[in-house]
């Protein structure tokens, strides 16, 4: 069932020339290609239907939407009939009414009235009721589906049930799985009246290929596929709130349906520009963590980290934290404290934390978790194109002819965008995958990569250079574009560099492990496009040459003219909901919002006059620098909003030593986490459901987060930051986050046109949004690059310091799975555990055989930095010599083994390359066993 406040128009919107027609005497103009049913709905002449819904192509099976069209024979189905200029449609007549009633009666003979729970909002039953049908004249004896083809209710999926007895075989679920999600898990099996929906090979949903995106559940017009949460309430929702998903960087627009102040269901917003009415297993279903019993809802303090936590009032916690920070600054100097913003929080909250650091702490020691993911994107794109952000809108992919995916696994980490990409691929676009691992896109139903460049971890730059070498030396460059739009001098220099035979695919083959012929083929395909688009993830950035690789990607795109229009571009797939936003908001220690360096006097002057305080002109400490400074005793206090260093940052031993050396760590989070073990003050955070604000997704789209329920701990995060600032003596006075956005707009040239009023009006806005682009900017660099002329950079391949050796012969790389999210703090507290309850090490069969390791064995993974134990999965998704794991569970200790190597420009850690040895062991380490045995950690709290 679609969202309860949604007016379903029957078929999807199309683009086309205006066509005017008449429906029941009402004149309406719609784009050519629109169906009659949609035109009628737009004219408020809704035509009954059961198999049509506006997320799916018309199917024409229910035969309820039949109409009369003047000059045409019979009663065509309005869902499959396109409008024609001057067409005269009649949606009502005695004949039509008789036909519709009769078809409804046929349905009701199989699906008696009252079969579905009231909360299902069964479309069939309400339609039948509208037509005055209470029972069917065809119903004799055992005509009900439950009687003639009994089947057990399939409740195997944690979030929804499949009850075949309520099914009306409209195929909406099957089509949603195919068209919207692209998984092809569902089919109709059997024929005639025996037709029924089957998941994979008649398996329970949970055991099938279903990825639990929920599109089928939403598509279902009856209660045949229904959320368990909806069954539990047995009433229609009291209200709906539009908000934005807080998981990945796709930033899906969601509608939270609420009853009795609890979310009963999440439904993707069909008007959502980013998600186009789709969602995934996390966004749609895994929101239960927000009200999980582990939530910390009372402020906590303690003197030493060995003490037990003490519940205190908000006032006491805030004043204690403020007093500690003041004490530390008095003793160790102004620069001895800092703050961390969170890419999980809103723009407004992020902006406030960096303001707190710069204005109230009086230094620039602010950084953000984007440091460890996409900081090289910001640096690399700023220096080549002029703006630290992706160039496209997601829907741009529908115009792409060639798609190159580098170091990303969209089906796992950005599933909703992956579905859009797969739709385009099914329509014929070509695919190049550059990844050490055979990600799902390499081969999945109806999608296959034309080229899979299976490089060795750490050799990205060698591969991108080889691709560019082919483009340049085979004359595939767009010389007119380059001459027109790029810096000539930088191009000439780069051209000379890249043409050097040492960058040829043949020369680097032994380094990268990619056959030269594949690189040549892929380069030609990409260069010839005509529209070629690059999408990349952390497999690009999390390397010692992360920034160089981002520049290499920009070089390739500029040289082939693939920037500045729809269907092309360079698009970083952001890992977290608000990575783009947290960077935009001035979370980095060297720059203010809008990526302006703190040393720039004019910018600083602007902030100083607005904030009425003197600001520092020197860059502050980055996160890894903070750890170094903590270890040498010059950095003693830290305010951390929504980040878990101790689990997420590399070389855990080093991080925990640094945290232990500090005198006051203030954590603001919704759950206890690994870092909180080193904290002195715990300020309860608020989940995305509990506050107003905005998130900015990977396509620079600013979307509203709206409060669905009251904050569990009484305050939203922005309110807590404000109180802390006031306690520190720097006054902040906001009564609503919209006022913070107004301040951001006033201080940030790319945001001057942004306001909550405009966001409400337009739904969402892609920055830059200002006088030059009042509606926002879907595609960047259209006429010229933001920096003026595009600048090529010489991107010499420098091998990482991390090398394999006899002692550490394998290369470990990391990634995510669909059902879990980052360090798992949220998803581990949902039923998503059913799919992925532990991290596993993927090992190639050859490497396994050489070590006598079998599937499911425990293996010790040792690097130069440390060791851990994981269960092994033997698979050829990884190449020989490469191992892979996810990092969603603290007991996996993946970061015990990652090293301190980092990107040269931004210190983004090199998570993606660690030399390791893998040996069979009997069991996990003792500490891991303790973690696994313990219930989700709730540390001892003594009542105040």
């Amino acid at each position, binding site marked *: 069932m679609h969202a309860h406040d949604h007016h379903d128009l029957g078929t999807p919107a199309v683009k086309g020339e205006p066509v005017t027609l008449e429906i029941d005497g009402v004149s309406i103009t719609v784009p050519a290609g629109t169906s009659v049913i949609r035109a009628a709905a737009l004219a408020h002449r809704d035509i009954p239907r059961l198999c049509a819904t506006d997320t799916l192509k018309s199917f024409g099976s229910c035969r309820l939407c039949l109409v009369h069209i003047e000059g045409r024979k019979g*009663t065509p189905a309005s869902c499959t009939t396109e409008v024609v200029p001057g067409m005269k449609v009649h949606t009502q007549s005695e004949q039509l009414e008789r*036909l519709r009633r009769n078809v409804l009666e046929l*349905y009701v003979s199989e699906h008696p009235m009252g079969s579905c729970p009231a909360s299902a909002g069964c479309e069939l039953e309400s339609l039948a009721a509208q037509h005055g049908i209470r029972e069917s004249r*065809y119903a*004799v004896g055992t005509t009900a589906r439950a009687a003639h083809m009994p089947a057990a209710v399939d409740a195997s999926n944690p979030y929804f049930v499949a009850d075949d007895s309520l099914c009306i075989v409209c195929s909406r679920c099957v089509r949603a799985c195919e068209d919207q999600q692209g998984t092809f898990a569902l089919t*109709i099996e059997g024929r005639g009246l025996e*037709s029924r929906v089957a998941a994979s090979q008649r398996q329970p949903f949970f055991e099938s290929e279903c990825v639990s995106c929920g599109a089928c559940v939403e598509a279902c017009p009856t209660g045949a596929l229904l959320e368990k949460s909806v069954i539990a309430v047995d009433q229609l929702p009291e209200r709906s709130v539009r908000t934005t998903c807080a998981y990945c960087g796709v930033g899906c627009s969601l509608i939270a349906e609420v009853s009795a102040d609890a979310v009963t269901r999440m439904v993707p917003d069909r008007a959502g520009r980013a998600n186009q009415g789709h969602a995934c297993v996390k966004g749609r279903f895994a929101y239960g963590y927000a009200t999980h019993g582990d939530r910390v809802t009372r402020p906590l303090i303690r003197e030493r980290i060995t003490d037990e936590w003490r519940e205190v009032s908000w006032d006491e916690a805030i004043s204690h934290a403020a007093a500690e920070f003041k004490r530390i600054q008095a003793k160790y100097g102004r620069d001895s404290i800092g703050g961390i913003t969170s890419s999980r929080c809103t723009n407004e909250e992020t902006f406030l934390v960096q303001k707190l650091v710069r204005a109230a702490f009086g230094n620039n020691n602010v950084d953000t978790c984007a440091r460890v993911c996409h900081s090289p994107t910001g640096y690399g794109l700023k220096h080549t194109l002029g703006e630290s952000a992706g160039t496209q809108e997601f829907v741009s992919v529908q115009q792409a002819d060639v798609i190159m995916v580098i170091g990303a696994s969209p089906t796992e980490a950005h599933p909703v965008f992956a579905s859009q990409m797969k739709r385009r691929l099914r329509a014929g676009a070509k695919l190049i995958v550059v990844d050490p691992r055979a990600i799902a896109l390499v081969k999945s139903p109806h999608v296959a990569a034309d080229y899979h460049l299976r490089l060795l971890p750490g050799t990205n730059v060698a591969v991108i250079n080889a691709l560019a070498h082919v483009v340049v030396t085979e004359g595939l460059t767009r010389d007119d574009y380059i001459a027109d739009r790029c810096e000539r001098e930088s191009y000439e220099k780069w051209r000379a560099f890249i043409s050097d035979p040492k960058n040829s695919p043949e020369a680097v083959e032994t380094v990268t492990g990619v056959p030269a012929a594949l690189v040549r083929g892929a380069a030609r395909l990409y260069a010839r496009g005509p529209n070629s688009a690059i999408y990349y993830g952390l497999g690009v950035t999390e390397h010692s040459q992360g920034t160089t690789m981002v520049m290499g990607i920009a070089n390739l795109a500029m040289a082939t003219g693939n920037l500045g229009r729809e269907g092309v571009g360079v698009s970083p797939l952001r890992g977290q909901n608000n990575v783009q936003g947290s960077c935009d908001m001035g979370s980095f220690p060297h720059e203010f919002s809008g990526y302006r360096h703190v040393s720039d006097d004019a910018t600083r002057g602007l902030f100083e006059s607005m904030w009425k305080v003197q600001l520092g002109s020197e860059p502050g400490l980055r996160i890894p620098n903070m750890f170094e400074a903590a270890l040498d005793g010059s950095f003693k206090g830290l305010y951390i909003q929504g980040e878990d260093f101790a689990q997420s940052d590399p070389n855990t031993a080093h991080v925990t030593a640094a945290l232990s050396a500090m005198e006051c760590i203030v954590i603001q989070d919704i759950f206890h986490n690994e870092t909180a073990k080193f904290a002195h003050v715990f300020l309860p955070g608020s989940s995305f459901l509990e506050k107003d604000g905005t998130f900015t997704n990977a396509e620079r789209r600013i979307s509203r987060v709206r409060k669905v329920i009251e904050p569990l701990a009484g305050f939203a995060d922005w309110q807590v930051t404000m109180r802390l600032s006031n306690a520190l003596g720097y006054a902040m006075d906001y009564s609503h986050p919209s006022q913070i956005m107004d301040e951001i707009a006033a201080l940030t040239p790319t945001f001057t046109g942004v306001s909550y009023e405009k966001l409400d009006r337009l739904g969402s806005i892609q920055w830059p949004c200002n006088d030059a682009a009042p509606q926002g900017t879907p595609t960047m660099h259209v006429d010229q690059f933001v920096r003026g002329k595009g600048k090529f950079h010489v991107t010499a391949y420098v091998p990482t310091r991390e090398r394999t050796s006899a002692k550490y012969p394998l290369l470990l790389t990391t990634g995510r799975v669909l059902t879990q999210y980052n360090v798992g703090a949220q998803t581990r507290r949902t039923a998503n555990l059913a799919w992925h309850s532990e991290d596993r090490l993927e090992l190639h069969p050859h490497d396994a055989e050489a070590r006598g390791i079998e599937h499911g064995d425990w293996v010790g993974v040792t690097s130069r930095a440390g060791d851990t134990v994981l269960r092994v999965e033997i698979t050829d998704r990884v190449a020989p010599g490469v191992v892979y794991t996810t990092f969603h569970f603290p007991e996996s200790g993946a970061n015990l083994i990652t090293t301190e190597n980092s990107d040269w420009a931004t210190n983004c850690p090199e998570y993606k390359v660690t030399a390791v040895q893998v040996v069979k062991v009997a069991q996990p380490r003792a500490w891991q066993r303790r973690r696994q045995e313990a219930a989700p950690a709730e540390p001892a709290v003594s009542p105040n």
Partner: protein
Amino acid sequence: MTGAPVRLFVPGDSGAVSVGADTVARDLAIECRRRGIDAQIVRTGSRGMYWLEPLVEVQTPEGRVGYGPVKAGDIPRLLDAGMLEGAVDDLRLGDVDRHPWMRSQQRLTGARLGLVDPQDIDDYLSHGGYLGLEAALSLSPREIVQRITDSGLRGRGGAAFPTGIKWNTVLEQPAAQKYIACNADEGDSGTFADRMLMEGDPFALIEGMTIAGIAVGATQGYIYLRIEYPHAARTLEAALEQARERGYLGDDVLGSGKTFDIEVRRGAGAYICGEETSMLESLQGRRGEVRVRPPLPAIKGLFDRPTVVNNVVTLATVPVILARGAEFYRDFGMGRSRGTVMLQLAGNVKHGGLVECGFGLTVRELVHRYGGGTATGRPVRAVQIGGPLGAYLPASRFDTPLEYEALAAMDALLGHGGVVVFDDSVDMADMARHAFAFCALESCGKCTPCRIGSTRGVQLLDRLVTSPDGARAADKALIEELCDTMAEGSLCGLGGMTPFPVRSALRHFPEDF
């Protein structure tokens, strides 16, 4: 004996084989060898006189003399009697071409049935084969299509859509890839013309498809063959192989520089796959389920490319039109039904088989003159024309000419040309129930009127038998309403045509309800 071997013809048609033709052929060979007779036994298709099968023919100076029905046990006696010289016997039929059943027919599409060796392309060539293709290659694609249009040929699969118009639509599509899809999923009960052609004269179909491909610019053809026709599959594969070897298929058809080839794809036993959009889905390896039109297959067909979808008879008729001209063909038939029709007479009939003649033969002529009345000898009560979804006609309407418009005027249809005869013991309520049951069994399950309505129809008729008089009128009205819903609301002909037999039974035989 000396000189040329004696030529004997024994049908290899599966209809003839089912009544012992293989045994007859084998025993004939053994007996001739035993007697030292140099005999050549040619396995042909069937002439279509199934009550006479196995029908053995002997080549004599006076023509081909037939004997039938021949049983294996008859062979020594026939040889003793001088069958090889065309001697008189109780089973002797005389010159088969002059047999009354054959003499009055107008065999154009089926001209070579029973005459030629279907596995021998030279035999085909010596009987006028590939003259149509040669003619076509001297014409422009537009001219070929024009000839088909001018001939008045309409689709023989049942829908009777003008073939030339369909071809022209495909011709006008600018697509780089187009297809010819031959619908050989002959599923109507009592029909066998497609099978006879594929088993008896496969080159005619191959030639027709090749001409179609050259006309519309398609380079690949598919024959969607029902799984129940293994014999036709073998014959077609052998014929395709010869056509390729001899340059009639491939990337340079007859040296024209044009490409065309054909692949046989086997169906999976679903009646609905005879419906063209289901057939295309199935050809693509998907569930055989009806697709909404538009888009028409001619614009977006197989693999979403422009596709000519024609029935076997339609395509096998194309060569004769090209070889002998549109006017020649158009001069047969009546009204808007031009050319000849392949009528397949079956059921409770004395003489069942294939009758090809110009449109316009009356039902009575077919059933009585050709069919000789019922096999049981009882009076004919009804015929069902056009397969299991065709209407029933009572004896009082037997003057109706067998052509599209006259039948349409009677709420009946010619369909694929099957005519099934019933004697006076038939229960028409049972027949109506059978129509619903057939629809329920074969429904793809996509559209509601067919998916649910067909089963409800069966249940209603069951209920009608036992329901009290008062309720019966309401139930009859509900059957009528259901028929309206299925006719007006179904997505394809399966549900849409099921009301034909039901309503005709109700209308013409009310006493049975």
